[in-house]
């Protein structure tokens, strides 16, 4: 343990109101503590800059998965294990369960939360590309009220977001509009469990015969934030799904993504594999 423990404080609020008050009264001082699977790693390494935390673990308002006619609403404190077990998510939003299944391993899946994954804002976070292609919305709450923001656009730069210091993510809302879409995801992390993605993709497309009616592509680990490959999507929309289209899309993607070298992988590898993943998705579209 490289942290000086006496410097840290973890408060268990009586209810969500108290949690929001703490965040509001001393903005930037108090920070949410969800499953702790990102925060504890920083603490252990002596790199946890913030010192005061308010636990969200026992706040019922942030838990639960509810399905209405138009949306599925996932409480921010929902764990990966809960996501994997939910029938509507499994049927309509399978990419989320696939990502959850490949996040860490079982212990992390029992403890880590989807809200934590979003707020932690790692470019390599595995659930985020799925949220991007599902065009999720986030419900943010604060002592002053609540607001709903589209998830696409939530990340403003490396580890920065639209969320204010006095806000919490209460829930993630997924529009139930996936019928007729073909979905695909893949994580590339060198080993099969406990891996941080070197590249990951979430993708969905709607075909009309052999024509790509609509398509959404999102990647992790290829930019400072998870990204949608907008230009490549445009290049594919309305095109016939054939090898010429696939080659065009591949070239467009290589143009669009600008990954970097780091200790986990190289820019070259990320670019080429991201392109290969796109080709794999397009080649498989007919079987999905």
């Amino acid at each position, binding site marked *: 343990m490289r942290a000086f423990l006496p410097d840290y404080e973890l408060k268990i609020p009586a209810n969500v109101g108290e949690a929001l008050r703490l965040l509001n009264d001393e903005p930037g001082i108090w920070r949410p503590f969800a499953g702790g699977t990102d925060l504890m790693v920083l603490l252990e390494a002596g790199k946890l800059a913030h010192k005061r935390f308010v636990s969200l673990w026992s706040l019922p308002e942030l838990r639960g998965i509810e399905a209405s006619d138009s949306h599925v609403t996932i409480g921010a404190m929902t764990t990966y294990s809960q996501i994997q077990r939910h029938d509507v998510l499994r049927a309509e939003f399978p990419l989320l369960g696939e990502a959850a299944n490949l996040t860490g391993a079982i212990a992390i899946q029992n403890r880590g939360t989807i809200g934590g994954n979003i707020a932690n804002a790692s470019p390599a976070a595995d659930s985020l590309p799925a949220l991007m292609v599902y065009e999720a919305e986030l419900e943010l709450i604060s002592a002053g009220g609540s607001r709903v923001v589209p998830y696409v656009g939530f990340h403003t730069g490396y580890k920065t977001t639209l969320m204010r210091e006095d806000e919490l993510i209460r829930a993630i809302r997924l529009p139930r509009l996936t019928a007729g879409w073909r979905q695909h995801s893949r994580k590339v992390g*060198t080993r099969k469990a406990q891996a941080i993605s070197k590249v990951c993709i979430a993708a969905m497309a709607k075909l009309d015969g052999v024509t790509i009616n609509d398509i959404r592509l999102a990647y992790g680990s290829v930019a400072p934030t998870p990204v949608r490959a907008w230009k490549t999507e445009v290049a594919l929309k309305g095109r016939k799904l054939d090898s010429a289209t696939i080659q065009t899309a591949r070239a467009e993607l290589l143009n669009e993504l600008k990954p970097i070298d780091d200790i986990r992988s190289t820019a070259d590898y990320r670019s080429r594999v991201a392109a290969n993943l796109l080709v794999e998705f397009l080649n498989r579209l007919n079987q999905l």
Partner: protein
Amino acid sequence: MPETHVGQSVFRKEGFDKVTGRARYVDDLTFPDMLHGVTVRSPIARGRLRGVQFGDGIPWHEFTIVTAQDIQDIPGANCVALILEDQPYLASDTINHPEEPILLLAHRDKYLLEKARRAVSFDIEPLPAIFTIEDSLNRKELIWGEDNSFKSFLIEKGDVDAAWAQADFIVEGEYETGAQEQLYIEPNGMIAIANPAEGVTVWGSMQCPYYVHKALIKLFGLPPEKIRVVQAVTGGGFGGKEEYPSMIAGHAALLAWKAGKPVKLIYDRAEDMVATTKRHPSKTRIRTAVGKDGKLLATEIDFVIDGGAYATLSSVVLSRGTIHAAGPYNWPNVRVRSRAVATNHPPHGAFRGFGAPQSIFAMERHLNQVAQTVGLSPEELRRRNFLKPGETTSTGQVIHEKIDLSFLLDRAFSLSDYHAKKIRFAEFNAANSTEKKGIGFATFMHGAGFTGSGEVYLSSVVGVEATPEGRVRVLTSNTEIGQGSFTIFSQIAADALGIDFDQIEIAQPDTANVPNSGPTVASRTTMIVGKLVESAALGLRQTLIASGLLGERYSADEFAEACRQHIAAHGELKSFSKYEPPPGVHWDDEKYQGEAYGTYAWAVYVAEVTVDLTTYETRVDDFIALQEVGKVINPVLAAGQIEGGVAQAIGYALYENVVWRDGRMVNNQMTNYIMPTSADVPPIRVYFEELPYAFGPSGAKGIGELPMDGPAPAILNAIEDAIGQPGIQTFLGQIPLMPETLMKVMTTGGGND
């Protein structure tokens, strides 16, 4: 008499304590008034130390602070005694590698201690550093001795220079292997009590108590009886706790000496990974002369390892790598030239296999290239050249064992269905553009025990002692580090004495109570030390029989009664046994000629892989490990050694990449240093052949290191089989073969794009 134990999978002697949490590791121990210690290390690779600053906000007067200066105030010397005495406990003037220890701190509060560690900073005038074997060989900077060379060896057999002219083909290749972290589950740690009255006592995680003992004698300048080293239950070593514990023990003891209180010094994973030893990176160039008929005529091997900044064990690692470089083949002419060179990396050290995995990787990849050049299958080339009884190794050692490598190869191929799979995979590959399958193998041998005259120098001693209740306690300094040595010793002693396994106890290795039976390294514990256990136990039995208290056949009660009476009449009942070399073993240290090892284990490993052309990732789908290891003493433990070694070697081949930046490991976390998980490791199917070795206990040979040697070349041979296309040279000469590297090979070498 009870049934025999050797050959049975009896339960582990210490297993119950480990699974119930009763076993006490060093971090579980505490002493009254104990302080915690930390090591403050160099942030840069090379330079001159000009000063130390102690930052604000820390109550420094509460801390015990030790620098190199403090070592001058005690009678000993500031060097870690091992082979050459070039490595200081604490740097005083020159810094030679990142994370080199400079200063030690101790305090009661371990969290405050961590804060203090960060508040220390050093004034270091940087000097240019070197990090590659090339830069060291070219003496880009002179950083060690006169030529950056810790050690070199030359093996000559026959006349290599004359052979080139007769060759139909000459094949050349260059091979590289990377560093590898041992990743024992328990990080390093020590506790010391040290003061002028009592001397120095340390408890800790270690493989070799008498290495630590020797090092502390030198550091403190105290007589041997004033130093006591006790092994705590140890969670794995793999070589990583062979030499480095001497450093940590010295640090803990220096702090304890100055503080006048016990000091506990435990590394966390990050420190353990960044600061302690790893497997030596290597570079091998091989040039081979071969005839049209596939007869190997000559080979010239140039083998270089990166030793890091200090000599430590590099000369010995180099020796084993050098001797194993030519493999189990009948070469009429061989020249092996080898060097261990200095760089400004933290010193590389012992790791399972000890130089052999590096040079064997090179040869087993090389022979596949030779086969391709000659137009033979890798199998046929090897069959035509396997070493047979009566032929000689590169050091001129005549093989007396009745080993038949062609038979081993046949059996491994039938177990793995090699030939049928070759055909099936070729069909699969022709029909599949996103995945390719391949199968490959490696054949190799591994010498057990210390090299050459090493065991004679060690001159190990083992004792057994009987209690009046008829229990027998084995006294050795060899440690249980997860491999099962206490179980094996108990099986051997129980059978030698004709008593039950449960009547045997193993004394915890403690230099105050056990004789020096040598280090727990080099696959020597079962074969060499186990044999001494056997003869010491037989000696004890003989004493009882000779005294007339015991007949040739006896029950447990009769044995206990005999012990009781003997002890009542004569006091302590102990028997000791000392190492004697087998007859006919000669070794010339100058020429590197003769019997390099008493015996070898022999093996054929077969790997089956799938290469994913979308991600360039390789999955090992199946693994056959067939080996001849003499008598198998405990089948479950033996299979466990092989499975673990293969898994570790799969990591070495495909996953574990130490990322260096200015000589420092920057991925020193398990998140970013990718060790394979159980989900990544295939079924490992282990098979043994048993040709009893006359000088091992019940015929056993050493097996601990063997499984580290073969998997990497077998896997790369399989990958080549998967992705190689006729006419296209896809050269795979480097491990770890990360997907990034494979991508480069495949996209620039004309492979899939």
